[in-house]
């Protein structure tokens, strides 16, 4: 069964939240995005089925790991420390070469999001402990191609 987790290479993906572009990733790292819910709900009767679009089908969890003390870390940390929760809107845009050799983009619009979990330090046994992991949940996401 396919996973509902999407991975984006930081080398060719642009994450922009509230007009701020993120770039302080570990070399070769990925941004993880996971749909939290299915698209539809199906309720089976004996001979029929009711299919409804779920109102929470656009919920997506995003995980980003940023270099500690970098500008991106400072930016998200300052948002986390604000008195009122900061609402994030933005996009996750990946550029790639399509089958016919044309440079193309695939984009996810991210709406109504906020930081959820407390940021954690990512331990790495070869490079030391130099990353902060942030988790955000967006409630209104769609894929645009």
């Amino acid at each position, binding site marked *: 069964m396919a996973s509902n987790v999407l991975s984006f290479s930081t*080398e*060719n*993906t*642009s994450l*922009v939240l*509230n*007009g*701020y*572009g993120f*770039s302080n990733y570990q070399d070769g790292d990925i941004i993880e995005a996971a749909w939290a819910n299915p698209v539809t709900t199906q309720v089976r009767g004996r001979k029929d089925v009711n299919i409804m679009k779920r109102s929470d089908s656009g919920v997506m969890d995003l995980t980003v790991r940023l270099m500690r003390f970098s*500008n991106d870390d*400072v*930016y998200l940390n*300052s948002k986390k420390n604000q008195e009122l929760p900061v609402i994030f809107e933005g*996009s996750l*845009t990946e*550029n790639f070469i399509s089958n016919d050799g044309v*440079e193309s*983009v695939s*984009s996810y619009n991210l709406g109504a999001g906020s930081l959820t979990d407390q940021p954690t330090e990512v331990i790495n046994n070869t490079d030391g402990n130099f990353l902060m992991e942030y988790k955000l949940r967006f409630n209104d996401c769609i894929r645009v191609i």
Partner: protein
Amino acid sequence: MRETDLEIVKKSYADKRIEIKGIAYTMCDLTNDASLEIMGLGQLCGADGSRINDANWKKLEKKLCDAFMIDNQLLSRLPNHFEINKGSYITFISYALAMVSFPFIYEV
């Protein structure tokens, strides 16, 4: 900076975008530290291309490409952009650096 250039930078800073040869470059929000880092590199190697061989020029280019985007894509994620648009390169570096520096130097 000539007055006309200053007017262009002022308007571009207000709009957070500058159009060069039909392509709109949008400035991202930047932390103070990020802006000052770019300004410092700009001071070291100039923005007019006169010290393009300076070791800091590549750093300046990288920082500016992390700070500007086209259609929600950071320039740093579009490695071929200036290969295709060579004529925009120096103009972009000059105006982008001026836009980042503008609030520190000119804004009242």
